[in-house]
């Protein structure tokens, strides 16, 4: 394990020249503002293009930026840097600004705290469904409306409630980023020995150096990346210099989830279903599937046929996971849902791999569309040039590699979850075996889907 305590003796070494670069960056008064403002600027350009730019996705800079660059790259960010994106996300900046100007700082309602993650899960599912039915990704205006909906939600939450209520309890990407960032290779944590006698809690409440944690976290009890966005406020405000940033093996956090939550595991499993749907609808075989469904359903309404496909993909994946958990629980004498919650986290690496692999196709085979549409903004038209960065075969090799890596990481995670939950080897083995079969099956399905030819976004 490559554990690097970036501040082994914080009380003595605080604010000295020997401080590691990453911590110096987080402590800098320029951070995260120096990244937030350019991001906000680009976001404005994207919104303008989506709403008032070319109606054809192929020619729209906003579509290229959002769906060819941002969406494919974002899971890679989560994997490498946790929720760092959330620190510079334009919506977070917008929330902060509106809160500063108009905010009333009401406490977050209890129901939102309790059911927020379910709202996130449902919103994510609904948006994915709506994308297919209404063609959000293919339509710059549709994408623009989606961003406007989010913008409105962000502003309403920002002016009424405290801190980044939207980001923590409502952002549809929050559930995804929370899950993915658990697999990240860096973590920000407080040093328990230093925090033991602290009564200030400046990290939570804020002080003259920085505001309190925008995600409502208290670093000294934080044992997960799910809600840390690496904004660096706690690094700046902590009077005892307790905060450390450590590297860790990818997926390690998933091995020791202390309080597994069904809603988080549920999202992990549902995302696998969504990856399947995303892939299936972009395959040439999709038309054949649609025609069969049209015959079975007795209607040629895409709304109906896609909704059936979507519900089937979600529920079959969840049902398969439940049956796996049922068999696993039989070996350990527990409830199926309890094992579902525990082992659902093991699907996250494969989710991540599937998500990146799927979007890698768009990123690498259409990536130059950003350059071309950007040049068109400046009046320089580019014609008859391929937007591909890599050839299809090279992309497919990368996709397979990712799926294999994701499957292995998921299997290893499931094994570690079993070992950390059951002291007896035999019991751990019985708990793990059904997941071994299930994860292998998911890996094979993903590999088959990536073998088939896929359609472009732009």
């Amino acid at each position, binding site marked *: 394990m490559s554990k690097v305590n970036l501040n082994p003796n914080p009380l003595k070494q605080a604010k000295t020249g020997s401080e590691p670069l990453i911590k110096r960056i987080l402590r800098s008064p320029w951070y995260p503002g120096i990244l937030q403002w350019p991001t906000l600027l680009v976001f404005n350009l994207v919104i303008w293009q989506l709403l008032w730019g070319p109606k054809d996705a192929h020619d729209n800079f906003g579509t290229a930026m959002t769906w060819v660059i941002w969406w494919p790259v974002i899971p890679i960010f989560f994997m490498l840097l946790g929720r760092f994106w959330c620190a510079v996300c334009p919506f977070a900046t917008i929330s902060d600004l509106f809160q500063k100007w108009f905010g009333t700082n009401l406490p977050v309602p209890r129901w939102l705290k309790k059911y927020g993650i379910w709202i996130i899960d449902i919103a994510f599912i609904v948006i994915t469904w709506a994308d297919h039915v209404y063609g959000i990704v293919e339509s710059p205006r549709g994408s623009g409306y989606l961003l406007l909906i989010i913008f409105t939600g962000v502003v309403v939450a920002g002016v009424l409630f405290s801190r980044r209520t939207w980001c923590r309890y409502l952002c549809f990407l929050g559930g995804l980023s929370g899950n993915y960032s658990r697999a990240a290779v860096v973590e920000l944590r407080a040093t328990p020995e230093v925090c033991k006698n602290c009564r200030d809690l400046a990290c939570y409440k804020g002080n003259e150096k920085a505001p309190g944690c925008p995600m409502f976290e208290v670093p000294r009890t934080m044992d997960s990346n799910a809600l840390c966005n690496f904004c660096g406020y706690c690094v700046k405000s902590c009077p005892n210099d307790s905060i450390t940033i450590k590297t860790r093996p990818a997926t390690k956090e998933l091995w020791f989830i202390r309080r597994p939550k069904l809603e988080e595991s549920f999202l992990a499993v549902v995302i696998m279903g969504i990856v399947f749907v995303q892939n299936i609808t972009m395959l040439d075989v999709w038309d054949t599937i*649609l025609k069969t469904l049209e015959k079975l359903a007795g209607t040629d309404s895409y709304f109906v046929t896609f909704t059936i496909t979507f519900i089937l993909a979600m529920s079959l994946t969840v049902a398969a996971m439940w049956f796996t958990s049922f068999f696993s629980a039989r070996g350990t004498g527990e409830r199926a849902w309890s094992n579902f919650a525990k082992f659902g986290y093991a699907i996250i690496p494969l989710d991540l791999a599937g998500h990146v692999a799927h979007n890698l196709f768009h990123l690498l085979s259409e990536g130059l569309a950003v350059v071309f549409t950007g040049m068109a903004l400046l009046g320089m038209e580019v014609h008859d040039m391929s937007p591909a960065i890599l050839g299809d075969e090279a992309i497919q090799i990368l996709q397979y590699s990712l799926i294999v890596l994701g499957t292995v990481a998921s299997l290893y995670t499931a094994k570690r979850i079993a070992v950390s939950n059951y002291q007896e080897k035999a019991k751990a083995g019985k708990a793990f075996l059904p997941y071994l079969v299930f994860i292998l099956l998911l890996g094979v399905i993903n590999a088959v889907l990536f073998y088939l030819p896929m359609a472009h976004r732009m």
Partner: protein
Amino acid sequence: MPTGRIYQAAVIAALALFFFANLSINTWASPGKKGHEEPQAKQDLVAPPPLQDSARETEPQIKREYRVQLATTPSPLVKGKNKVSLYISTPEGQPVENVLVKGVLRMEPEMKGHGKMPAILLDLPFAAQAEPGWYASGAVLKHDGSWSLELALVYPDGQEQSFASDLAVIDEGPNKLVLAAFGSIIAGAILLAQVLKRTLKTSDEEVPAGE
């Protein structure tokens, strides 16, 4: 004046300007009202596309060749309200009155394999205008893309002609009502926050349970 107040005033002004500007710039009105240019004279026509005279080949017995010019407001047509105008004249350039004009706009939607949709047909009720030779109809188009205009004309001398022409319909931007709705929600939330700020003492510094 404190900086915060200046920011607040600037943001409110910018928001108001943004929405009112959008609403006013793109507001369409019924033909002849503000927001639309009335094609009053031939020079007002924006490059009338040459209409394909399908009758010319099929009906060689036609003696008089009437000239039909097409003008749209706006040009090109947009998703939403439009006005389609025709100027009909004799070969000598004299306006022709009492022409019976029947028009249909047709679109064959493409669904990229995502289901089938029947052709969209829109009848254009052309009516003679105050200016001799001018006939016009409103056209509310709910879809952008490629439409075809099909015209059937019956002249005062009993002669009949039909025309077909492709017209591109563009989507100018987002729906103004949707923008206004989002703006209203945001403005409402800001107002509510200001009211609550004055009536409630709020603080979020309560440390989470377990600390």
